[in-house]
């Protein structure tokens, strides 16, 4: 095989891996949109907040240290203990559940039956709030997150692929980041877990009922409020996983919240209401934007990744206005 062909395969492979990470974020959106019709812009900030909390707990940082120091003139920054990764993850999940309860109690309860755009705006407000709150709680410096996921290029895979190139070609094997591989594995198991959960448990069935029809679900005795807390907790958990992966990749900092913007075209492409759509959409977008950058960057200049996904999704939408897997939009007068 020629080296160019192999490079292209390498680009596609890495694109698919990145796409899995996009799908992880998109998944959180889809869950909330299905269950409550809310387009939750705060999903990215939730991932940031979860990652910040995880790092903070793991390293034993004092919450609001900066504020405490400013008010009382003290100099606290760390507790004496550090937590093992698994304990920190469990505590962070508890924090995200608490967050879900608070969101339901303080915001969603009061905004029942509002127009979708009002709810959307409320989640942007929530995103602003969480951004300030997270920074205030844990400080705005860039933190490194290490939960024991292996990182760096896979030597085995490089050795494995080096022989594929034809004799005499300059090819040194394909580069695949171990972290991306792990992310893909975790994402797949997460989707399997969610599928099993929604198919075979009582709460999962209730969740699907609410997604189908709010009124009908209410009339058979399903509490919408409990479902909302549940679904926000689950997407808090998904946000934690996404935040963990992205945080391990590029550090925990403000820019982490911008992954929400990466997930939006994925959602558009896959359809707002479809979990498989989020996965397939993520893969298409991930591979597509990496390929486009690979082939077009020398011609029209780099950094096309910011907009290419949107344009690609837009083109798809012109042919399928509800996304690839979205529910068919039926309009009645």
């Amino acid at each position, binding site marked *: 095989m020629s080296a160019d062909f192999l490079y292209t395969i390498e680009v596609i492979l890495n694109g698919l891996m990145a796409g899995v990470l996009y799908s992880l974020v998109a998944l959180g959106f889809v869950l909330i949109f299905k269950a409550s019709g809310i387009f939750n812009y705060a999903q990215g900030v939730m991932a940031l907040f979860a990652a910040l909390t995880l790092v903070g707990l793991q390293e034993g940082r004092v919450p609001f240290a900066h504020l405490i120091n400013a008010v009382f003139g003290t100099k606290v920054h760390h507790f004496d203990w550090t937590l093992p990764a698994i304990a920190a993850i469990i505590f962070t999940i508890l924090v995200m559940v608490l967050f879900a309860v608070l969101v339901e109690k303080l915001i969603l309860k009061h905004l029942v039956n509002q127009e979708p755009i*009002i709810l959307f705006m409320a989640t942007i407000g929530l995103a602003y709030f969480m951004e300030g709150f997270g920074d205030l709680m844990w400080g705005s410096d860039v933190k490194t997150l290490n939960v024991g996921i292996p990182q760096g290029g896979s030597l085995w895979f490089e050795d494995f692929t080096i022989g594929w190139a034809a004799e005499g070609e300059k090819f040194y094997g394909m580069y695949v980041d171990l972290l991306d591989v792990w992310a893909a594995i975790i994402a797949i198991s997460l989707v399997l877990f969610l599928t099993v959960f929604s198919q075979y448990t009582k709460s999962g069935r209730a969740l699907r009922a609410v997604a189908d029809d709010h009124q009908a679900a209410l009339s058979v005795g399903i509490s919408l409020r409990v479902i909302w807390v549940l679904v926000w907790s689950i997407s808090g958990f998904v946000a934690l996983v996404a935040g963990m992966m992205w945080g391990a990749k590029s550090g925990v900092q403000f820019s982490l919240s911008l992954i929400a913007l990466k997930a939006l075209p994925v959602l558009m492409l896959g359809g707002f209401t479809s979990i498989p759509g989020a996965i397939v959409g993520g893969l298409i977008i991930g591979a597509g934007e990496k390929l486009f950058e690979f082939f077009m960057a020398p011609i029209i200049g780099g950094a096309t990744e910011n907009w290419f996904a949107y344009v690609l*999704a837009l083109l798809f939408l012109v042919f399928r206005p509800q996304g690839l897997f979205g529910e068919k939009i039926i309009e009645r007068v």
Partner: protein
Amino acid sequence: MLYREVGEFKTSYAQDSQTFPIRFDRYRYYFVIIVGLLFIPFVINDYWANAVFLPFLIYAIAALGLNILTGYCGQVSLGTGGFMAVGAYASYKLMTAFPDLNIFFVIILSGFVTALVGTLFGLPSLRIKGFYLAVATLAAQFFLIWLFNKVGWFYNYSATGMITSPSRSVGSFFITGSESTPAAKYLFCFLFVFLLAWVARNLTRGKIGRSWMAIRDMDIAAEIIGVNPLIAKLSAFAISSFYVGVAGALFFSVYLGAVEPTEAFSIQKSFIVLFMVIIGGLGSIFGSFAGAAFMVLMPVALKNLLVLQFGWSVDIAAHFEFIIIGGLIIFFLIVEPHGLAQLWNLLKQKLRIWPFPY
């Protein structure tokens, strides 16, 4: 007591269809115009112009534009920042290519350029609806900003990639550049706000405004009663982009003087303008002004309060600013989802029967 409509008899069609049918409203409007024209220009200084009045006036234009699209025609757009950038770059190219052209016409022409671009990006709205469209407009936002960063022609191949507005004047008053005075800038923006608000008000209550509202309320039904969705949606996109483009041109040339697209016209701008429209009130001219005032004044007030009064360090104050802005937005949406305009209407209702509510 003061606010009454009894005893006001309309004796001509002109009186019946005027914008402010109640005398008190009309006087209040004249009062605001007179204060804006004859009082503020004489007392304005650099701080007040740059921190409060110029951003308020310019954002009010952008909010009017977005309100036409989102509030009246029901098409949610998140590309406002990108379209503002189009206006800014159009005005820059026009100013540098035609140095003799009056700045007033430069701004108007940049509005038309933006209208053209806006119509182009509005085309998908014929097929895509709701949130899908909102996300689709993000394509405009990211693509346009990328374009202005990458293609040298737009910033005349300057080394920094920034655009800087040259000095331009109306008569002997400098509007842009270093010699400009706050009063001249303020009056220039005021003129645009006045004209555009007047146009918006009359567009929205005319035939075209009604067709927008029909599309917003239910597009299929509107189509059946004879509203052409192609014309209604694209005209809303065009006119809204015109407003946003004018705002962007003023933002660059008059207010900031020098901009760099990724900073000045980021997606945050789109959100801020959308907040103005929602907090002010969807589908209300007054709401656009109220929302712009709220979103411009609140950060200034918070900064003054927290940093100067309480003496907090700047970074803690910045975090609190985020928390408070986010909290207030949620609070407002919960208390009054129809925005400040609705609160204003309620207040007027109360005033009508005050002091004898029963």
